[in-house]
């Protein structure tokens, strides 16, 4: 840094100041990168213009944290210029707009707090939040993934929710990739996989929160950019949701100690992964779920005793962001005395204490008269805590340490960063011709697909997660000795109500067109939810994209957001929360644009929930939805390494009516089993149902004429057209069922049979039989 710009203003505590008034543009950039602020030139200039005085390192770090991509969603709130005009904000124009237009009265609080909140029964709301923890997991898979789970649990505690379930969606490179193919600094997918799965499992299991939903994907593209989504769901009495911090209330920090761990986690998550990631020791976060378990107990007791006026978690940006946010959202100010903060190590500079991202900490605002009771609860749970300061009406965020004022910033300026402008350049996704001969050995195609890493049984992961703890899991992710996979989980969170919460997800990153990829993911999240009996579904979006400063990445992000708006509206399903993780780029290239949609539905009576295993020989089996030759990006073509053809598209009008009819059929009690058609299409769905059941299934593709729109058996079986279900209906109820689907694509294509096998009659009458044992062997990799 240029001589004279940086000045030491205090030795003890060590504080430096930078005089931006003297700084030229190159200096500004150098300050930003030298101090790890990750701020752009425009942002640095805005800071320079605002202040007629030198800024301390603590203050500059506050900007670096608060204005980071992670904390303030610059890209999603910024403007996007395209050739055909400017979009003012992705969030406002698409995501939140869908919710606003739909105006569902059951949305209790959306896009506001740490998690989205929706009505459950009369007196309760459900809280939901999904986060990503990609960079930390790439550096330290176990700790990164574990603290991802820990962090999102705190988001639920941060809206006073009692956590009832967690979920995780993971994307890895191929486990059999050669070492020589890895770029320097990239860890082997096998190492990452083991660590991430163990980390997710460890934290949830330790906390006693069941992990009930998720997905595992493999693709070469994720080798350099592991993707780790962690979700948490909670419940709380409506009247216990308080968020009204007042002047005079105390800011109380509680939980784990503050150390150098995770310093700069935020700015680090907002930039590309550097090659020498091994040097990023301070970015590593060590999980300690034991503290968070006690934190959870204390938070819920304080909630139930109505002792606090506000709460938030400490995530990105640590104390600086949590205090700033709480003060800013309440229109207040705060002076933080850092002296009381319990530290893990000595010799920490004020700015380090200020921005440290040590795990397992929460911030509460407590009316002074309640402090003794709150303290008693913390002490009873063996938790360390301190009072940071008192909220005032100054609208300023100040911090002192050892009597020195180290930070003094106006919150209005701090929480109104300059609006960002990004450019998007149109990139057309063109479908290319497909040349693939129809294979004549269908059974071996089915077996091959069942063994595909993206299709095969997930028991090896799912059973290492406790999905039964709390004793509230009704429909489990895997079920029965056979480990059959259900499409969504059903939780019964309240003792005195049969109402259930239904949790599902949808993710289809392999369909090359970003618009339809997003549409399919959204529809799949709904479809999974409907399949077990869910309805009134709210959704969460989680974008994992590459560097948004690149115009092509920005374009695909824009298109995906457009789809989010279009299909959320068309399906009548509001977004309630979400998050974006950008800058997922590594020496091996940008991440494949990956959108996760999480669905949270309800079911009035959990006893009516439907599982995917076949129930009784003789029951008719129906195929719902139209099968087209949509195989581009399908598990079938990818397993052959072939590209081309058409990708799945969503017809929301038809799809929505199918879902509504299915929900009605489930409610009337005539649906015995249901499975949605996703990766691997009809062939895989049918095989999975057989693997998970005592009886078997016989079906004839020919009976699907009119809704199976292809002349090829392989396409009929493996196309991944959206909006489809395979449904077992209780014998004797064919009439009712068919009546419900009048005018909709639905055909009776087979029936449950006694022998435990899958019998398929092809479009040209050829019969194939696959024994359950061989299906199971392929699927389980036995």
């Amino acid at each position, binding site marked *: 840094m240029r001589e004279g710009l940086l000045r030491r203003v205090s030795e003890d505590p060590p504080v430096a100041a930078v005089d931006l008034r003297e700084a030229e543009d190159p200096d500004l950039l150098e300050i930003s990168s030298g101090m790890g602020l990750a701020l752009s030139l425009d942002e640095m200039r805005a800071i320079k213009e605002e202040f007629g005085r030198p800024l301390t390192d603590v203050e500059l770090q506050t900007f670096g944290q608060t204005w980071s991509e992670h904390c303030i969603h610059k890209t999603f709130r910024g403007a996007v210029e395209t050739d055909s005009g400017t979009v003012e904000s992705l969030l406002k124009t698409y995501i939140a707009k869908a919710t606003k237009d739909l105006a569902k009265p059951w949305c209790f609080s959306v896009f506001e707090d740490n998690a989205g909140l929706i009505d459950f029964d009369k007196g309760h709301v459900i809280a939901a939040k999904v986060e990503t923890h990609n960079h930390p997991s790439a550096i330290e898979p176990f700790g990164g993934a574990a603290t991802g789970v820990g962090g999102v649990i705190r988001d639920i505690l941060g809206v006073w929710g009692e956590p009832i379930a967690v979920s995780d969606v993971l994307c890895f490179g191929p486990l059999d990739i050669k070492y020589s193919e890895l770029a320097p600094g990239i860890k082997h997918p096998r190492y990452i996989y083991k660590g991430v799965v163990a980390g997710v*499992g460890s934290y949830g*299991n*330790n*906390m*006693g929160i069941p992990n009930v939903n998720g997905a595992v994907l493999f693709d070469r593209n994720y080798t350099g950019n592991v993707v780790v989504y962690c979700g948490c769901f909670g419940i709380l009495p409506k009247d216990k949701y308080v968020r009204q911090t007042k002047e005079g209330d105390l800011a109380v920090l509680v939980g784990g100690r503050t150390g150098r761990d995770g310093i700069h986690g935020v700015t680090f998550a907002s930039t590309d992964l550097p090659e020498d990631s091994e040097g990023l020791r301070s970015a590593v976060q060590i999980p*300690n*779920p*034991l503290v968070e*378990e*006690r934190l959870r107990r204390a938070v819920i007791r304080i909630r139930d005793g109505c002792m606090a006026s506000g709460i938030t978690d400490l995530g990105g940006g640590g104390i600086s962001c949590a205090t700033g946010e709480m003060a800013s959202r309440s229109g207040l100010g705060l002076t933080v005395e850092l002296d009381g903060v319990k530290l893990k190590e000595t010799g920490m500079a004020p700015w380090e204490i200020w921005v440290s991202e040590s795990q397992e900490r929460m911030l509460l605002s407590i009316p002074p008269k309640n402090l003794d009771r709150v303290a008693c609860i913390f002490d*009873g*749970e*063996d938790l360390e805590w301190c009072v940071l300061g008192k909220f005032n009406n100054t609208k300023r965020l100040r911090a002192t340490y050892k009597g020195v004022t180290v930070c003094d910033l106006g919150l209005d300026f701090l929480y109104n960063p300059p609006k960002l402008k990004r450019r998007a350049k149109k990139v057309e996704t063109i479908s290319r011709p497909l040349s693939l001969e129809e294979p004549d050995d269908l059974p071996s195609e089915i077996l091959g697909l069942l063994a595909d890493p993206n299709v095969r049984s997930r028991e090896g992961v*799912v*059973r*290492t*997660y*406790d*999905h*039964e*703890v*709390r*004793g*509230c*899991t*009704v*429909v*489990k992710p895997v*079920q*029965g*000795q056979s480990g059959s996979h259900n499409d969504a989980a059903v939780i*019964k969170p309240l*003792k005195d109500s049969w109402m259930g919460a239904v949790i599902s997800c949808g993710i289809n990153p392999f369909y090359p067109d970003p618009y339809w990829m997003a549409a399919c993911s959204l529809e799949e999240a709904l479809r999974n939810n409907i399949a077990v009996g869910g309805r009134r579904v709210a959704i969460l979006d989680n974008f994992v994209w590459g560097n948004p400063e690149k115009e092509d990445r920005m374009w695909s992000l824009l298109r995906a957001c457009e789809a989010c708006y279009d299909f959320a509206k068309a399906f009548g399903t509001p977004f309630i929360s979400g998050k974006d993780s950008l800058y997922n780029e590594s020496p091996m290239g940008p991440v494949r644009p990956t959108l996760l949609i999480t669905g949270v539905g309800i079911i009035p009576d*959990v*006893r009516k*929930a439907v*599982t995917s*295993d076949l129930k009784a020989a003789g029951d008719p089996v129906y195929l719902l939805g139209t099968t087209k030759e949509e195989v581009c990006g399908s598990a079938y073509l990818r397993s052959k390494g072939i590209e081309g053809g058409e990708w799945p598209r969503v017809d929301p009008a038809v799809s929505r009516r199918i879902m509504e009819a299915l929900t009605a059929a489930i409610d009337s009690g005539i649906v015995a089993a249901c499975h949605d058609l996703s990766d691997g299409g009809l062939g895989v769905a049918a095989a999975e149902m057989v693997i998970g059941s005592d009886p078997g299934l016989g079906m004839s593709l020919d009976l699907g004429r009119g809704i199976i729109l292809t002349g090829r058996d392989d396409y009929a079986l493996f196309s991944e057209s959206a909006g489809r279900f395979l449904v077992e209906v209780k014998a004797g109820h064919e009439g009712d069922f068919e009546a419900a689907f009048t005018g909709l694509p639905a055909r009776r294509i087979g029936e449950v049979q006694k022998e435990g096998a899958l019998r398929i009659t092809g479009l040209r009458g050829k019969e194939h039989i696959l024994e359950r044992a061989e299906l199971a062997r392929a699927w389980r990799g036995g």
Partner: protein
Amino acid sequence: MMDLRKAKACILRVGGTNCDAEVKAALEDLGLRSDILHMDWLEKGKLSEYQLLVFPGGFSYGDYVRAGAVWGKKVLTKMRRDLERFVEEGRLVMGICNGFQVLVEAGMLPGDEGAFSPTPKAVLANNSSARYECRWVFLRGEGSHTPFARRAGKGEILRVPIGHGEGRFLAESDKAVQDLIRSNRVVFRYAKPSGEPAEGTYPFNPNGSVYDIAAICNRAGNVMGMMPHPERAFFGWQTIGYGNSQGYGDGRKIFEGIVDHIRSL
């Protein structure tokens, strides 16, 4: 005959315990009032108010050092006297999952020599799969004399889930295992769907326990530890795909045994 309304259960917890609420729900459904108490704040003499003491599942002290070890030793330093009296008076002590590990580490099970043996005489070692396992198992009642098996007698098959990483029961010696069998202290064994013992086959025996042991009790039968979670198979709706989803699940039988016993006092 004891009036159940006068009886009470104590469910202990420490940092990391997390299955206390569901145990309470199960006991209270059967009419047995239950308090969840943090062990650090348990007053001397307080135990005598209770007829049943439960060490529930979870990850006490983060499962650090060895599952159940830290809590087990803490039991010894913190409440040994009261607990000794509790056991000697024939009151019931139940350890579920992590609670079973605690009873073993505290030397209360297998329970050959009074309430506590000076060193642990058994262990719940890492599962032989080296993984945490969450799955439903078949348990076979072995006809033990313990009140906990009153409603789940010899040959009775129960379906309940397990969820643990350290559940492989090992005793000090083969002789010790034989002694457990002979003295009728093996309460449940892991079984195949047919009801035959699992004979160590995975996943029916999910962790590699010797002699498929899932639950044992002390000589008097009033201290019992089990790895599976009966409280997660108490209500029918918890058992979708594993049993009768209406009504009640098999795990209830164990709690019914407790209540029957208390009533008979």
